[in-house]
């Protein structure tokens, strides 16, 4: 019998089994493995290293700290901060908080999706941009807001959002 979830939800696709260098992770594990309650901190440090949580890294954490992989995956998938796919060079975080919603973040999303030809959570083929809807960036008085690699852009219109993306794209292709 075939699974009703479809191909994209298959475990292998959600958690790609790619080769990663585990050395920097060992430094983190060395520091935290004896401290109880530090699993989430370890996962956060792992994501800082790789930009996401690679499946092999999760397996490695399980082996070293002696916790079942199921428990690690259970904790990791619970929190929205953690990603399981590599991201592009630029992470576009589009605020979907209440103030942004009231001030038209939906139209900004439409414009960005159209400009990049991707949907929420996806990465462009050239691996330049990843789009991620986030709950709130906390700069509500500048709504609607997006943040690209830590830099905030406020009071967006569909046109100004497109312009920001185009500007980055232009700089990338020229350099």
């Amino acid at each position: 019998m075939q699974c009703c979830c479809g191909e994209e939800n298959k475990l292998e696709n959600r958690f790609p089994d790619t080769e990663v260098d585990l050395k920097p992770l060992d430094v983190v594990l060395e520091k935290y493995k004896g401290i109880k309650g530090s699993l989430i901190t370890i996962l956060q440090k792992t994501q800082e290293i790789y930009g996401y949580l690679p499946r092999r890294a999760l397996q490695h954490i399980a082996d070293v700290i002696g916790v079942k992989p199921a428990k690690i995956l259970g904790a990791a998938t619970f929190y929205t901060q953690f990603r399981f796919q590599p991201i592009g060079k630029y992470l576009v975080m589009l605020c979907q908080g209440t103030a942004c919603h009231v001030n038209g973040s939906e139209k900004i999303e439409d414009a960005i999706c159209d400009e990049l030809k991707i949907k929420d959570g996806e990465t462009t083929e050239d691996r330049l941009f990843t789009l991620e809807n986030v709950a709130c960036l906390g700069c509500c008085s500048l709504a609607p807001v997006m943040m690209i690699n830590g830099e905030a852009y406020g009071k967006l219109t569909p046109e100004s959002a497109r312009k920001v993306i185009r500007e980055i794209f232009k700089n990338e292709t020229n350099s």
Partner: protein
Amino acid sequence: MRVRIGLGSCGIAAGAKKVIAELEKKLAEKDLGIKIEQTGCIGMCFNEPLLEVFDDEGKVSLYGKVTPEAVDRIVEEHIIGGSPVTEFLVSDDDMTFLTRQKRVALRNCGNIDPENIDDYMANNGYKAFEKCLKEMTQEEVIEQIKVSGLRGRGGAGFPTWFKWNATLNAKGAPPKYIICNADEGDPGAFMDRSLLEGDPNSVMEGMMIAGYAVGASEGVFYVRAEYPLAIKRLEMAIEQARERGLLGKNILGTNFSFDLRIKAGAGAFVCGEETALIASLEGERGMPRLKPPFPAQKGYWQQPTNINNVETYANVPWILFNGGSAFSAMGTATSKGTKVFALAGKIKRGGLVEVPMGIPLREVIFGIGGGITDDREIKGVQMGGPSGGCIPKELLDTPVDYESIVKTGAIMGSGGMIVMDETTCMVDMAKFFLDFTQKESCGKCYHCRLGTKRMLEILTRISEGEGKDGDIEILDELAVKIKEGSLCGLGQSAPNPAQSTVRYFRKEYEKHIYDHKCPSKKCKALLTFTIDEDKCTGCTLCARKCAVEAIKGEKKKAHTIDQTLCIKCGNCADVCRFGAVMID
């Protein structure tokens, strides 16, 4: 002459760093020997970036929406020339945003350098803590909190002294813990962030006093990872407090030993609930558990734990310094003191405001906030975020206190206040919040996990023109069941946005369901776009912008929209310069 710039997240997002770069360049060029000082959030987010100039005579000039170009003139004309550049100054009208407030928790925000503990100490910082350690017993400290009438500022409004007392009297072997809940999950609220960024020491001092009062040895900040600047400033403040012997062993020569550390949350709304927060601190999935036992008896690692919110702790040093009765002199019979709100949405002057409890909502929105963007008609205000409800304009004279707000169907919440105007669709708002809570439900309770999803499905259907007779009744029934069948505050309050909008805006729901119309013109599926032949000049702009080529017509002649092709994206209405595209 001194200059100071506001460097909260809002200021930085609005371009404060570019302003600093330009200012540094200019000041160096002119060799004026003036150092640029920094401060946290002033609260006037709508006028960021903000720059203050202090003349030698003590006169303060506040410049708003400062651009690098404006910096050049401010340096030339004001700092060198001595006369303020009036056109860039924040207007007198905008200044009422600050003068109408009463600042207790935010007393230092925007007045001190958050990265320098000496600045905090120069403003009576840590004096209350020292007084507690050296002159007061644990019971006396708790008594002052009781006299103050301080209630939890995280949303539920539980009396703070009661929690402290329960933790103090908890039986069992040490240690005890103090936790600061800084997992500000309400999308549209930024009080905690601003406080931690603008005045981390006052929150720390509040925790240290709580630590002394309940006999705890360690305090933990649980801060959202999305607030990197708040975490950075907290780290600095904790380090500086350790250097000065305010944290560590035998503080200030007494027997009291206490230390603080920070743990970054990983993004889960439910972790605002205290038992879920504790589970998360212990490295587990953030799922709530049944109470009792309360954290005061069995909390972090099963030890007695006191949890309060950021703003609650920030009030504590003020209360101990000025006395509990000074605090209870403000506010109403049951809600004492002040409350901080994050004012946002369709508001002219959005930002951080702190007002005495009991003032009417109207005063906050119109008096301080300056009214609605573009002078449109106000429709209502959402308080308490996804756990709260919508208060309609008819009830704007409701006083801001815990009980009065609950009576309207909303909750005080942590302080998110989103103003909505006639262009905001209430079905869409309910759908927005249910979408949020159904994603954030931890899944432990059946009613919350599935009930919120079913509510969202119904709301989605209504907003797409597929609403059915009886839908409103099912929504109501589901709301009651979810509230009854959920363990924690998330589930117990998740139906509030839908329930309160049904209560006050039932006609709007009925319009969607029976007439297939969205009066606020927000629900795309219910809209029809047509072109007014008299207004259309045939400029062809809309036709060129139409993604599906649904707009036909010759140049300089009126165009028409093919309804069978139209996807209702609204591009044509956005680009038309003649107002010829009609939306119904």
